[in-house]
């Protein structure tokens, strides 16, 4: 029980190596299966579950398909309603998840198949190709410095540039780079090899292949999080991604972030000009059953108010306009946060959905209406930030099929009973937490992460007692 089976995707005699299994599995392997939990998704929710369970003495495998943990929260600047620095709040946790003796990180890794039964699941995992042997890599970063291929940065939401060999952020956990095969000159053109030459420990491996392995766990927590609605392709009325100074909220977080591409300056992507008039449009793709998503994305009202406030902190004489339908500030201290922002920063909330925007010279003309005055409104903005709908991460339906849990039409995982079992799925031993179950903010996600940890513990302690009785 518990041994790790490596299933390489190799044919006999194949000269290439496969992705080595990274990390020390000894503790995980030696724990009984009813003491092992898998957490799928290493955002704030998954990390919270994993650390709670790790602290409770469970062996946790914390899985993420990206190369490092931290999820969306790591991209945020400061968080509402306290304006705490998101990195300062989260990095201790990402570091802890990486250092915890009972937590085993599995990044660049995806679930392929589920077998077994509650209390004794066998999960097949696919270790994706990283082109870097992480067991050798020391995270020195030389390869990143030397890489000649620059492109759009995933982590910076198109706002910054990064190399073809990269870590998601400078504070990545684990701090090991991966190569983007689509941009790597060696992998696309067959010529380059700068990183391989630069690497002092010979960790670059252009010929790496996927590997597959299985682990046995007693319970599984699904915390796969959210993505941003594809407004660029689906919302031509807001420029369809072709007007450079129209960005989405998550991108704006990078602009606000001191470690972001503009070092926290609010300048336009198009010409680097300081933004003096900024328009925020809420419910972009949300609350729109006819064309987009019928549901409300819950957190946009608050993060937009926060954006407005942080913008005003940086550009004192700037003017903020926010198009909204209803202001939804329901958490503890949220209403007060919004009201204080409006009063102190003189933010203009305009009740009405903006219909359209277009580029006019170096301005963006935003057409909307103020339903309170009954006027059609037009604003010439320097920058427009769209609070685009939040959607489940892609692959949710596939994962639901693998795990045998339910998914609604929007791709959110469905719990057993909305009121009293918001964590449980139809499948015993499989639990939900965070935005994959329905959009929620960090506080609610973290609380649910802990709740899922509780459910897993309760279930496994029951399994242990049953096993003992059987013995």
């Amino acid at each position, binding site marked *: 029980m518990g041994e790790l089976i490596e299933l390489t995707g190799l044919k006999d005699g194949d000269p290439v190596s496969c992705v080595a299994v990274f990390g020390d599995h000894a503790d995980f392997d030696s724990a009984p299966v009813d003491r092992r939990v898998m957490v799928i998704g290493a955002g704030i929710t998954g990390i919270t579950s994993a650390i709670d369970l790790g602290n409770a003495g469970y062996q946790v495998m914390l899985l993420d398909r990206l190369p490092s943990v931290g999820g969306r929260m790591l991209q945020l600047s400061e968080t509402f309603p306290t304006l705490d620095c998101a990195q300062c709040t989260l990095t201790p946790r990402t570091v802890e998840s990486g250092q915890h003796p009972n937590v085993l990180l599995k990044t660049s890794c995806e679930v392929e198949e589920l077998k077994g039964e509650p209390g004794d699941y066998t999960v097949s995992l696919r270790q994706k190709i990283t082109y870097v042997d992480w067991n050798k890599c020391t995270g020195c970063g030389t390869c990143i410095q030397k890489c000649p291929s620059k492109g759009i940065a995933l982590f910076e939401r198109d706002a910054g540039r990064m190399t073809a060999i990269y870590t998601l952020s400078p504070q990545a956990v684990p701090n090991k780079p991966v190569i983007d095969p689509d941009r790597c000159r060696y992998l696309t053109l067959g010529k380059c090899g700068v990183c391989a030459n630069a690497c002092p420990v010979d960790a670059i491996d252009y010929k790496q292949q996927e590997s597959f392995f299985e682990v046995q766990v007693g319970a599984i927590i699904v915390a796969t999080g959210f993505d941003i609605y594809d407004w660029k392709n689906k919302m031509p009325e807001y420029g369809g991604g072709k007007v450079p100074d129209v960005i989405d909220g998550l991108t704006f977080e990078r602009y606000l972030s001191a470690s972001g591409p503009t070092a926290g300056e609010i300048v336009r992507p198009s010409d680097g000009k300081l933004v003096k008039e900024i328009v925020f449009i809420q419910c972009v793709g949300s609350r729109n059953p006819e064309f987009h998503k019928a*549901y409300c994305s819950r957190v946009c009202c608050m993060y937009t108010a926060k954006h407005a406030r942080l913008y005003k902190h940086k550009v004192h004489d700037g003017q903020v306009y926010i198009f909204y339908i209803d202001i939804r500030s329901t958490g503890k201290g949220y209403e007060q946060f919004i009201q204080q922002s409006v009063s102190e920063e003189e933010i203009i909330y305009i009740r009405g959905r903006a219909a359209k925007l277009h580029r006019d010279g170096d301005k963006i003309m935003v057409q909307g209406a103020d339903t309170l005055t009954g006027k059609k409104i037009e604003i010439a903005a320097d920058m427009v930030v769209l609070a685009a709908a939040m959607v489940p991460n892609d692959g949710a339906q596939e994962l639901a099929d693998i795990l045998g849990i339910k998914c609604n039409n929007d791709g959110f995982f469905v719990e057993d009973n909305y009121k009293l079992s918001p964590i449980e799925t139809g499948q015993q031993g499989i639990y939900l937490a965070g935005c994959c179950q329905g959009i929620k903010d960090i506080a609610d996600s973290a609380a649910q992460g802990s709740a899922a940890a509780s459910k897993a513990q309760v279930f496994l*302690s029951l399994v242990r007692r049953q096993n003992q009785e059987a013995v």
Partner: protein
Amino acid sequence: MEKKLGVFVCWCGSNIAGSIDVDLAVAEAAKLDGVVHAENYMYMCSDPGQQLVKDTISEKGLDGVVVACCSPRMHENTFRKAAGAVGLNSYLLEIANIREQCSWVHQNNKPLATAKAVSIIEGTLDKVKENLPLETITIDLTKRVCVVGGGIAGIMSALDLANADYDVAIIEREPAIGGHMAQISQTFPYFHNILELLQKKIDEVKAHPRIKLYLNSEVEVLDGYVGNFNVTIKTRPAFVDPAKCTACGKCLEVCPVSVADEFNRGLSQRGAIFRYNQTEGARIPVLEQRDCLHFVDVEDVEMDAGAGEKCTACVDVCPENAIDLGTIRTFNEEFVGAIVMATGYDLYSPAKMPEYGAGKLPDVIDALAFERLLDPTGPTKGQVLRPSDGQVPKKVVFIQCVGSRDPERHKAYCSRACCMYTAKQARLYRQQVEDGTAFISYMDIRSDSRDFEEFVQQGMEEENLVYIRGRVAKVIQEDGFLRVFTTDTLSSRQLEIEADLVVLAMAMEPKAGIRDLAKKMNVTIDGDAFLSETHIKLYPVESSTKGVYLAGCGQSPKDITDTVSQALATAGKIQTMFSNETLIADPLIAEVKNDVCSGCGICIDICPYGARLMNDFTRITDVNQAVCQGCGACIAACPNKACELINSTSRQFIRMIGDFAGKAEAV
């Protein structure tokens, strides 16, 4: 022997580096006495940052470290852990706070901010020089839990803990568990039958061998500390012996008293002996002492003939001899390691809204009263009827944000659940009264969870709910109906609606008596008396007192789903805590110099945690290591300077102040 000291300056992105010259700070720090290594890094708290600290400690053999970064509240633990991992005693690492106390407050003067940062680093270095290596303190752990409040939060938390095989005591003030949830008819957004859902959970609680229920009970005294709490529970007499009672209901018929039934929000009357609610568990009657003629001065109460002084009508009629009016209150003690505060909410009183009739207009009711009207087991058997005349109301006005979002006169916060329950109530009303009209006065519709928005939109489309954006100014009773004066800010019209029934979505406020209870439990509350969590994101269910956790509406208003998530989270946190056999505590606590202490006892009175005790044998005071939080109150109070805080001695502080003051003069 002089310590080999290292200094690590964090940029915190631009948070620190933006207003402090980190290179200069490092250069200056390197010159200070005892410093053998100094450097800076963009995010010291990150993995590579921590690795840097660890590697340097090992390489240079440091035996004292200062990390100049954010507040020690953020990362002291992070870095101490890192130091510990490479064999440096954690308590030889200190944080110099150059962010909150320097870079953030001096954003426009880089040279001065840098000089100040250096002086902070210097002072902290001087502290480290005299720091002693310390070991953590071990505390016993009782793996039992006390849950205060038997609403859905308490129930869910208790069930998880009990299912994880821990003993749980639920303390409930009312005669039955279930809380406000038992008053509610159906759920949003799926119209599930609440009572059915709740009944299952109540049954589970009652049948669970690990759960002990204290009904009619309150916390009288809390002693002890994390891992070792001693809860004294006061239980009011129930008067009816559940072992004998057959729930025949004869006593209910003979009781001469008739008072408003609180559970039905005054929509029905009950006797002094009554069934608390309609859950299965509450079939056995309870007797409310303050309403009972046996206990009150009969002349003050209007009563049926036959009920004389010292009324014993119920006792006399009971065929099973189950009622004993001589029962007295009891006290019990529970020894537990952790406590869950699931104290819940009350609705803000309509009496505080004179513009809406101050609770005196019979057909202006609050939302929980409307729930009682919708409940098939309620006073109208689920029929929506006006309280004044029992007629079916054809026009109902629901008013939201009553007392909420009103910083000027009532509560500044949003009560979170009202938008959704109002939509639900209006839909249920319209499903029942086909020719009825439901108006909803709102400011913003807050339907922000999965399927909530759809639920509200469906209400508009299918039940034709008329949402009117505007706060109602006044409700008056005139000519046999209610006039509601409001405005529609969207059509710019002042409106006057003639209504048959008005339902007020009153603000949710913490349960009455929470201030006293919070004091007893030593947990902090905010300005609105909601229980305060330690950190809204990182520690959302932890209270200010270790071992005491928070769940549900006592912490802030929320719906059932969010309450349940939070309750389960407390259970998770407690299970995590109970996974160890003992607890460990910080050794940074007070210490008594035995030869200086005169045994005057001032410290005993001053200690807010009860950690100082007189040793009857030596006649000098001791420190309870497990209870002491290292706050320093006793140190300031001691007239003989016989107390010191370990690693924060007066000597260390005087040197630190000297460093800061010296630098300040130089600047």
